[in-house]
């Protein structure tokens, strides 16, 4: 069983708390992403899992075995953890050819020659590298280098794979391709994936479950759909997909835009999730309908065709909203007055 459990994990660098009191369970065989803006502590979390960083507080267990424990000052060194790891900058060894790169972990394990041959060839075949096994990394492209890193990581058939932004150095088309290949490998080999990324689309596409962090603090854990549909905070809402926010104020049982009551009251009831009289409305561009009459009144500032979609920038009082409609829906001219109605919106406490 390779369930990875983090309890109360905290890591400080001087005055910076890179990870604060993180509780987390990553289930056996799932693909779990750590998502958040740059500098939020994702890499630090992954490096603590790998054993490269000690913990200031807390404990990390894999199955029922303790791997890191700050209380006991016990840290299983990285080379004893039997994890596979893929680094952002590939980290393939330029002085070894592809075969030797991939065979390295097996040689370290002290397997016999025949076993090394067989397992290396399997890993190379799994990643489509058999044909170039005698080449040196310098002769290969970025995508191929990342495949070498993958092959090297899966060669020892690890239970857990750690990937730190493995796709961010690849061009967009290749990125998508590699995403599928990683998922495919996981399906065949059954390892648990911990995947670090700052790209929400990538996290949504690859994960069974994921978390969002900010400044070292866990914001939300859940399936991609749950997080997309029910972001726990305004921050998560804005980080996952395109978003619009309006500051709202309740008067006489109706909700008005705070500094522009003249645009009219909100037609939908205020979400239950908010308490006080002032709150923030959050909505996705595709969840807002446009109509000639009624709704919150606004003016079309700009209209941009995005192929299947048309994007409007609509001014509502002092605010500007992004709204996306199908190309075959009713269109509105720039400068025209429009009414906004929210098919779906969420409310968050004001910050």
């Amino acid at each position, binding site marked *: 069983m390779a369930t990875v459990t983090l309890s109360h994990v905290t890591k400080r660098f001087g005055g910076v708390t890179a990870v604060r009191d993180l509780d987390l369970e990553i289930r056996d065989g799932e693909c779990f992403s750590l998502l958040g803006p740059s500098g939020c502590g994702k890499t630090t979390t992954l490096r603590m899992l790998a054993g490269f960083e000690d913990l200031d507080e807390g404990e990390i267990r894999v199955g029922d075995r303790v791997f890191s424990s700050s209380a006991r000052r016990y840290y299983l060194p990285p*080379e004893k953890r039997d994890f596979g790891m893929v680094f952002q900058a590939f*980290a393939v*060894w330029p*002085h070894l050819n592809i075969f030797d790169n991939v065979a*390295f972990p097996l040689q370290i394990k002290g397997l016999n020659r025949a076993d090394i041959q067989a397992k290396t060839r399997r890993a190379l075949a799994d990643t489509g590298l058999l044909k170039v096994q005698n080449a040196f990394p310098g002769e290969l492209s970025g995508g191929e280098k990342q495949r070498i890193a993958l092959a090297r990581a899966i060669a020892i058939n690890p239970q857990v794979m*750690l990937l730190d932004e493995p796709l961010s150095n690849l061009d967009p088309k290749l990125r998508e391709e590699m995403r599928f290949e990683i998922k495919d490998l996981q399906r065949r080999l059954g390892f648990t994936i911990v995947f670090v990324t700052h790209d929400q689309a990538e996290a949504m596409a690859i994960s069974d479950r994921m978390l969002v962090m900010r400044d070292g603090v866990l914001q939300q854990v859940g399936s991609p759909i749950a997080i997309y549909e029910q972001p726990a905070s305004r921050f998560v809402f804005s980080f996952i997909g395109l978003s619009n926010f309006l500051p709202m104020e309740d008067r006489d049982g109706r909700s008005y835009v705070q500094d522009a009551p003249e645009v009219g009251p909100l037609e939908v009831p205020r979400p239950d999730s908010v308490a006080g009289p002032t709150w923030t409305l959050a909505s996705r561009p595709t969840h807002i309908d446009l109509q000639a009459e009624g709704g919150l009144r606004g003016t079309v500032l700009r209209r941009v065709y995005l192929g299947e979609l048309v994007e409007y920038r609509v001014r509502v009082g002092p605010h500007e909203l992004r709204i996306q409609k199908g190309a075959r829906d009713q269109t509105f001219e720039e400068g025209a007055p429009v009414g906004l109605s929210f098919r779906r919106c969420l409310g968050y406490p004001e910050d």
Partner: protein
Amino acid sequence: MRPRRFGTAELLLLLSILILVVVVAIPILLIFWNAFVVEGKPDFLRALALLKEPDTLEALKNSLVIAGGTTVLSTIIGVFFAWLVSRTDLPYKATMKVLFLVPFMLPSFIGALAWKILLSPRGGHINRLLMDLLHLEDPVFNIMSLGGIIAVETMYLFPFVFIQVSGALERMDPTLEEAARISGAGLFTITRRITLPLMMPSILAGALLVALYSLAHFGVPAILGTERNIFIIPTKIYEKIYASGGNFEAIRTGTMLSSILVLSAAAILYLQSLVLSSGRFQVISGKSMRPMVLKLRGLKWPLLILSVVYIALTVVLPTATIFLVGTLKTYGLAFKLENMTLDNFTYILFKWELTRDAIWNSFYLSLCAAAVTMLIGTLISYVLVKTKIRGKFLLEFLGVLPFSVPGTVIALGVILMWSGRFGVNLYNTAWIIFVAYIARYMAFALKSTSAALEQVHDSLEEAARACGASKWQAMKDVVLPLIKPGMVAAFFLIFLPALRELTTSVLLYGPHTRTIGVAIYTLNEDGETVYAAALAAIALVIIVLGQLLIKRVTRAKIESA
């Protein structure tokens, strides 16, 4: 545009070629000519017969042993300390790193002088101390031996390896090592199978530099070896030229030995270019600068002490020795306050013509050589980097020459050229040293000015031209200001080493043209140990002040930029 036949560019090219031919190419050609041509006919057999003379053969063998030993020892020490300061949690790493570079500043012949005072078999202070303490009949150490020369050379040359390797270790992508670690390898395996192989180009580059310098150095083997009849190629050449008094056979042996030096230097530089151009080891990363640090745990303090002791022994002890001996009233007196005086320094600085002249000579020779060489270097680099004209390959070829000519060879070459054979006799004047310095330091000037010029993209000059500036205006207002830091760097890169130069000037000095290095060396030869040490102490002060000055100048440059 109509192709011009002969314009400014062609003129500059011709001028550059002419300068390099006169200053570098002809002297070298003369050496080969004298070595291999007898009475107008090539004669390789006679040349080979000269090499088979027992004393030349011995010198060749010693050169090989000393260069080989110094290179191996410097590489081991350099790699070890580089690893220590960049890959472990050694306390005070940053300070130690600076300290390991200090030996670079000390002229090795001054170090040799100090070590001779401390460890010569009979008179050496440490030997005498140990013999008294332990009641021994025989001295414990003998610095005046092949092993001693290797040890002293190593002390002052290992920073070449240290700099190369610690730089490379710091620039190396740390995840290359982490990937090996997570693959199950322990630190020893990682060092052996990943780190060392990846560092190999840097290690080799540093080692080859050490080989080049230890082959060409005159000072250390002259001070520690000559008295004991231990010669290497440069000191043998010196002996031949001086013992001969112009004897033809002796000069021929000198030119033969010089040819060997040139060819070995060329071979070493060729090897180095091969090593550096193999692109298989591009491991430099921009991101994620958190190198894996080995926890030394129990070894932490012992290793720090080892490093500090190493610095104390190789830097502090010799320097202190030089200063202390420089204050003695007579050599041989005990180091007690009543035996010490500062009069030695005032005597050397203001009263004694020989040393006063030497300081003055070194000063203006270095200043003029640095200025002139820097300007010539800029001109040649400009033609090499910025112009596209036919015939440039000739200049490119000539431009490589200065890099491969050891100081002794240059000296012999200018002797052959400027001793009246071609109508100009500069022998025994300061001019001949000046000409030799230009040849000797041309490589430094070419390197830093061409690097600066390569930074100035052509489009900058073109933009100025497009704004209506003439070619000359564009040069003056755009190119020159941008390469000025490179030119200043070139100036100091020449000025400081020239100030402490010995290898070349020792073959060229006349009665009134001693340099500081020559004065220290001849004073030591004449048994004036105290004055040699006092002058060496003054030289050290000047060098340290010079280094501080560079630091200030270059830092001011960076801040104003």
